[in-house]
């Protein structure tokens, strides 16, 4: 924009009005050409633009209801009639020359049909360009080679702006690219040196209303040679065949909408040309040309530009694919790293948590949160944990096919307004909703990440800046859009995770089957072993007894005593076998965990012990009521029974004291309670603190302290460990011992 126009007052266009205008039914054309509406087959002129006198020397009224045939030479007529059965694309433009009072005037004619009406548009040939294919080919040949060889999308865009400027001589040629919301951005520019750059500027979707976008998709090229020229109405205003205004959607001369004129005027533009760039049948962007004085472009050059636009459209897909290729390769390698790392972790979510950097890079996010079984772990710029928990609660119902994503979260979830600076964009990937395994990625508000395209406050160019500001308003609470390849990468990551998890589950299932089999074998083995050991043992026992009964007199006292020892040994052997069987069975029996009142439990253990302890002086105390825990009451009874009876057994004091209690909860492990059984017995030397828990490990000879099998503490340890607890002992030798063990105060998984 030139300096002279910097006082233009920008009025915000009434966009809704713009959108509602029926641009294609304007009933008028730009004055640099003539439009005929014709009725076939007679080519009767039923409507004509109100400028025939200036350009042809005939008044419109004189032409109406005449046949076009009267204006043309027989050769041209024959040519046109031939065209009518062909595809117009391949015949336009047709070269027509009309005899105006012995002055031959040459025209470019463009034919198309719309709603059953044949429309012929004529533009006077201003230069005597030699129109032939060779010239056209020369015009575009170099350009096409450049486009195709451009290594990147931005390179191609830069090339085409140069080529179009070379072909047309426009003061400024730009490439606009629309984003997913149809707002635009200037991504390439070629301009006169004295003009300010618009490169990198964004503008709101409303700058090019939907109506206009539709027409851009239909008409690949639009030329406005002079915004100050007066449009020419069609005569008559209604088409006599349809009784409606003529549909000018495909007319190259269609008049310009007042809103668009105002828009151009605000930018100081006098002439403009735009070429549509389509990708996948959608309007991807425009080649926009501006000129600061009137400018006409011949049909031929326009066609060349249009052709370049089409070539570029074809190249777009490949270039964008390429553009993303490096990025996609990077994403793939990140994915691969996860897939490699995950199976090595016990819980697949840990694999994600361990590598948050890559997780951020996977979708170019600024923040990430991993929710594994409801536990949150965050990295980068994220909302607070409590905000994330609330967000998860809100989003759970909205996840569709394991994914939810948006680039304008606050609009869907108003609560997010307060943390839009870090989380205007959100992707939620659900790995498992039942287990609350989610990954959330966050992107900040786009305003904070956008390339400003220069300092917006120093500029004197009002309009594009105004648009830019307007665009900024529209992108508040929005993040940069998520790319399809980023979404794809996430979905692929999920499939990989699910694959890994399923594989792990399969492995586990196989291992479990294997385990079940070996368990039942072991089960059987334990019983069979005990059975097979007991049978000969019983034989020895019985036969020793028979000997004592039948041959006592022969054996004498010494022999009998030896046989009695043999009998005692068999009984001891049976005790050992029973203990071993019991111990090997412990891990097999399902724990039936329930909330258990330990006061009742311990008291009933004491009652049972008291029955067998009648003759001994024992004082068993509970200094304060015991708490409730989650445990298997049968097994925990056995633990208390073992510990209390040991406290009594290994005690040589006349007044035996046993205390059963618990410690106050440790801060670092609030979910576990430490219980203790304390005695004033013989104590244990420190070097044996570990050994006493080994199976059949005894510290004393059998004939002392009512020798047991040495399995009691081993069994107690195993039971406590099956409850996810620990057991240990502290003791002052000769003064007494205290056995400690932990039990869960809450339900924990086994």
């Amino acid at each position, binding site marked *: 924009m030139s300096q002279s126009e910097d006082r233009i007052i920008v009025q915000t266009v009434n966009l809704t009005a713009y959108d509602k205008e029926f641009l294609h039914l304007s009933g008028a054309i730009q004055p640099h050409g003539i439009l005929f509406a014709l009725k076939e087959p007679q080519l009767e002129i039923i409507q004509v633009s109100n400028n025939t006198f200036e350009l042809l020397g005939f008044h419109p009224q004189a032409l109406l209801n005449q046949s076009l045939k009267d204006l043309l030479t027989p050769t041209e007529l024959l040519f046109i009639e031939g065209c009518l059965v062909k595809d117009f694309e391949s015949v336009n433009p047709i070269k027509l020359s009309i005899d105006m009072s012995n002055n031959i005037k040459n025209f470019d004619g463009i034919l198309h049909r719309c709603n059953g009406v044949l429309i012929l548009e004529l533009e006077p040939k201003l230069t005597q360009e030699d129109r032939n294919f060779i010239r056209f080919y020369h015009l575009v040949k170099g350009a096409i080679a450049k486009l195709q060889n451009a290594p990147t999308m931005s390179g191609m865009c830069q090339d085409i702006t140069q080529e179009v400027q070379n072909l047309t001589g426009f003061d400024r040629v730009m490439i606009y690219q629309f984003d997913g919301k149809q707002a635009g951005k200037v991504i390439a520019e070629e301009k006169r040196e004295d003009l300010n750059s618009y490169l990198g500027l964004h503008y709101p979707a409303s700058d090019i209303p939907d109506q206009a976008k539709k027409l851009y998709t239909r008409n690949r090229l639009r030329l406005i040679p002079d915004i100050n020229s007066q449009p020419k109405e069609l005569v008559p205003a209604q088409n006599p065949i349809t009784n409606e205004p003529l549909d000018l959607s495909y007319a190259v001369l269609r008049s310009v909408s007042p809103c668009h004129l105002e828009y151009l005027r605000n930018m100081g533009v006098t002439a403009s040309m735009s070429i549509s760039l389509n990708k996948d049948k959608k309007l991807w962007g425009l080649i926009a040309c501006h000129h600061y004085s009137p400018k006409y472009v011949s049909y031929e050059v326009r066609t060349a530009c249009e052709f370049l636009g089409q070539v570029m459209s074809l190249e777009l897909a490949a270039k964008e694919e390429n553009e993303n290729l490096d990025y996609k390769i990077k994403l793939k390698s990140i994915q691969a790293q996860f897939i490699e790392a995950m199976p090595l972790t016990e819980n697949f979510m840990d694999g994600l948590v361990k590598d948050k950097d890559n997780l951020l890079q996977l979708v170019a996010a600024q923040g990430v949160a991993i929710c594994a079984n409801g536990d949150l772990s965050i990295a980068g710029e994220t909302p607070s944990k409590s905000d994330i928990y609330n967000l998860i609660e809100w989003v759970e119902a909205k996840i569709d096919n394991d994914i939810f994503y948006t680039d304008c979260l606050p609009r869907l979830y108003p609560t997010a307004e307060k943390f839009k600076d870090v989380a205007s964009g959100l992707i939620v990937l659900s790995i498992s909703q039942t287990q609350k395994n989610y990954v959330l990625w966050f992107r900040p508000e786009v305003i904070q990440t956008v390339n400003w395209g220069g300092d917006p406050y120093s500029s004197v160019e009002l309009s594009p800046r105004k648009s830019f500001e307007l665009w900024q308003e529209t992108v508040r609470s929005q993040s940069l859009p998520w790319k399809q390849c980023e979404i794809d990468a996430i979905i692929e990551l999920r499939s990989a995770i699910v694959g890994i998890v399923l594989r792990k589950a399969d492995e586990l299932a196989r291992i479990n089957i294997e385990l079940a089999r070996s368990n039942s074998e072991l089960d059987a083995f334990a*019983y069979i072993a*005990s059975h097979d050991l*007991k049978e*000969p*043992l*019983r034989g020895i*026992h*019985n036969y020793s007894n028979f000997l004592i009964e039948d041959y006592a007199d022969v054996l004498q006292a010494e022999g009998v005593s030896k046989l009695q020892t043999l*009998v005692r040994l068999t*009984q001891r052997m049976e005790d050992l076998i029973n203990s071993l069987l019991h111990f090997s069975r412990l891990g097999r029996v399902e724990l039936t965990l329930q909330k258990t009142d330990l006061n009742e439990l311990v008291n009933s253990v004491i009652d049972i012990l008291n029955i067998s302890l009648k003759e001994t002086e024992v004082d068993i105390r509970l200094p304060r009521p015991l708490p409730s825990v989650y445990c298997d009451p049968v097994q925990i009874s056995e633990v208390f029974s073992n510990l209390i009876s040991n406290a009594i057994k290994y005690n040589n004091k006349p007044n035996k004291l046993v205390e059963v209690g618990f410690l106050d909860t440790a801060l670092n492990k609030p979910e576990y309670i430490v219980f203790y059984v304390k005695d004033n017995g013989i104590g244990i030397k420190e070097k044996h603190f570990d050994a006493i828990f080994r199976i059949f490990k005894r510290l004393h000879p059998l004939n002392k302290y009512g020798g047991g099998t040495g399995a009691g503490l081993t069994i107690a340890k195993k039971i406590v460990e099956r409850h996810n607890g620990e057991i240990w002992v502290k003791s002052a030798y000769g003064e007494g011992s205290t056995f400690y063990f932990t039990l869960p105060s809450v339900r924990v998984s086994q």
Partner: protein
Amino acid sequence: MTGSTQPLLLIEDSDEDFAAFERILRKASITNTIYRCVDGDEALDFLHHKGQYSNSKAPRPGIILLDLNLPGTDGREVLEQIKQDNELKMIPVVVFTTSSNPKDIEVCYRYGVNGYIIKPIDVKKLMRTIQVLIDYWFEAVILPNSVRG
């Protein structure tokens, strides 16, 4: 009339266990005829009058004492066959075994065993157990074929 005179079939592979059993019965002055089979196959032959028992008149026992872990056809299978046979199923079968495996106990009762006794090692306990067994089945209980019309 109780089954105190009916023969008793003991299916037991261990000679020592059998000897102890016999001795205890003798000491308890029990006079019932005792037949012994050393494995499952022999027991089934004895009951079905087959094999070595095809010509002899093997009497139908009033009660069967069955050890579970037998060579060849295993005690569980013997029990199953007895309890599936329309005639034999009436004979009370008491399992007399060393196996304390809960699975065995469950399986035997599922097949319809009439009692399950774990053999104790202690000889006094063993005597007491056998005494109770005999008192119950031959004194207290009425056996099916002991009432003659």
